[in-house]
């Protein structure tokens, strides 16, 4: 019986059958059944243009390009390779954490404690190396695991007890900031590694004396994140979880676990980010990462990932981070007051969402 059904449901040669079902199907077919396209919209150049317009990342992509052109025209220093690489390095740490936050946002959760996790893990990492004599790589591994464990706590409290992640992670933000201050006594923790120590080179050196290794870390993390999100079942389930949790549960997806894993990914990436910063400064400061969550969330939101989940992409987040990085850099090059930076960033965030909303309204 079941075999019969399978055969019927996947006809090898439509129209050749002799049984009743095929006859009825033929009849319906001749009655003018609509043709089904596998791709949306027309093909060719017009199709590609439409696909581009339909892309979630369209707004932020245009913003990135426009900003790049505007800054290049405003100051000849901006488009030079040195400066581009500087901007790339400056956004690397932010973009790495923002990758985890993108996963979280798409699954419909938020993490406000990222700045504190980042700062706290920096202190722990520096202390493990400086005070307890750990091998830096082992210390890095420990810190990444600790980050995942903190994420596990955030995720478990959020999903098992039904407390909004906004509240849970707000609490974690405070707890870990206090933790960083307690663990360091309020003082910076300095690590004493030789200038040519591989840990320093790999976390914050340069490849062929030019490209900062942090940029490679960013590319690696984002490429992996983008792959998982767009190509794997896990990624697909992340979208489903944030898009319609009830439907995801009915389809057998363990949404609680998906969300918890996303909190863990975010925490672990904070650990990597802390190591990249420590390699750069060789000092960990207990107040590092204060207010950083807002910049990171801004990058994710500018990148087109909505706060309420179900959509978004790593490419968008990368472009969002690039926009923020270019603004900071551009203002410095233009000699604007540093106090103007938050004003510019805030305006860009609102403008980005506004443009995106207007385009979306017209499209649907």
């Amino acid at each position, binding site marked *: *019986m*079941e075999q*019969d*059904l*399978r055969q*019927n*449901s*996947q006809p090898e040669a439509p129209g050749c059958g002799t049984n*009743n*079902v095929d006859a*009825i*199907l033929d009849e*319906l*077919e001749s009655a003018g*059944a*609509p043709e*089904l*396209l*596998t*791709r*949306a*919209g027309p093909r060719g150049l017009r199709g590609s243009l439409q696909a581009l317009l339909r892309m979630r990342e369209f707004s932020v992509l245009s913003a990135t390009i426009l900003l790049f052109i505007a800054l290049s025209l405003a100051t000849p220093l901006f488009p030079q390779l040195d400066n581009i690489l500087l901007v790339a390095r400056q956004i690397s740490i932010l973009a790495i954490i923002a990758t985890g936050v993108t996963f979280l946002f798409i699954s419909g959760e938020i993490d406000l404690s990222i700045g504190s996790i980042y700062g706290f893990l920096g202190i722990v990492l520096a202390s493990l190396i400086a005070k307890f004599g750990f091998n830096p790589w082992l210390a890095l591994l420990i810190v990444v695991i600790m980050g995942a464990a903190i994420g596990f706590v955030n995720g478990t409290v959020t999903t098992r007890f039904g407390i909004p992640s906004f509240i849970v992670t707000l609490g974690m933000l405070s707890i870990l900031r206090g933790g960083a201050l307690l663990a360091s006594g309020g003082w910076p923790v300095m690590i004493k590694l030789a200038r040519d120590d591989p840990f320093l080179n790999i976390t914050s050196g340069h490849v062929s004396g030019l490209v900062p290794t942090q940029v490679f870390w960013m590319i690696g993390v984002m490429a992996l994140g983008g792959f998982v999100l767009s*190509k*794997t*079942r896990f990624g*697909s*389930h992340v*979208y*489903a979880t944030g*898009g*319609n949790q*009830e*439907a*995801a549960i*009915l*389809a*057998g*997806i363990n949404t609680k676990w998906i969300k918890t894993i996303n909190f863990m990914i975010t925490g672990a990436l904070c650990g990597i980010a802390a190591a990249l910063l420590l390699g750069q400064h060789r000092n960990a400061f207990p107040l590092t990462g204060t207010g950083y969550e807002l910049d990171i969330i801004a990058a994710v939101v500018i990148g087109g990932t909505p706060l309420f989940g*179900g*959509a978004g992409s790593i490419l968008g987040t990368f472009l969002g981070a690039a926009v923020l990085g270019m603004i900071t850099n551009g203002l410095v090059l233009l000699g604007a007051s540093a106090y103007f930076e938050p004003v510019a960033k805030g305006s860009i965030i609102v403008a980005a969402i506004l443009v995106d909303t207007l385009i979306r309204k017209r499209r*649907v």
Partner: protein
Amino acid sequence: MEQPGILLTAVNTTTPGMIGEYPLVELRGISKAFGHVQALQRVDFCVFPGEVVGLVGDNGAGKSTLIKIISGAYQPDSGTILMDGKPVTFHSPRDAMMMGIATVYQNLALVDQRDVAANIFLGREPTKGIVIDRRRMVEESVQVLQQLRSDIPSVEVPVGLLSGGQRQAVAIARAVHQAAARLVIMDEPVAALGIEESRKVLRLIKQLKAQGRAVIVISHNLEHVFSVADRIVVLRRGRLAGVRRREETNAAEIVRLIVGAEHL
């Protein structure tokens, strides 16, 4: 006390081509209570392969409870479920799904932001290694939608952009595709739809029947029930009020069964 044979025989003699065959799913003497509310009381029910059964009754008559028992969401307090004549027990909707019973929920359970193919394969995405086999998803989605003669423009459109009837088609396509469903249960499939859209969904139901699948449709709209159902099962206050073949009854009789003859 239980006389399952009567119902079975009655149906067998009046369902052409089904003589001697077991019902696809048969319920015998099913009872289910929630607290001290008796939702179902010794209800007998059956559906044959390729048959469309309309399940009707007033609010609280026990329709939803009955289909939730068939779909494995509820377990009966007493009574037997048989598939192909053999007793079965469903501990969860997953068990029922494994046996070829798929349910289209009233709210459709679709993810609006995801495209048609992703929704049809929701939670069961095929993979090649660790990568989702997107090509297979698209091809099979097109296939199953073509079988249903659906008018969805593309399987790569987010379902949020589709009309109510098209969304219904996606939900039905998913149900059909799951384990090559032998029985599709639909709870109020046209309740939220316009006339033209309703017609399309009713055509989908006929399409399922033409493919040899059984369908149970819950609906408040008797006109729709009469247009697709081979048999109409009426529940009243948790009891079986009557079973009629479509040709042998009319709306007035069904309404009498629904509200209870003493009220007219």
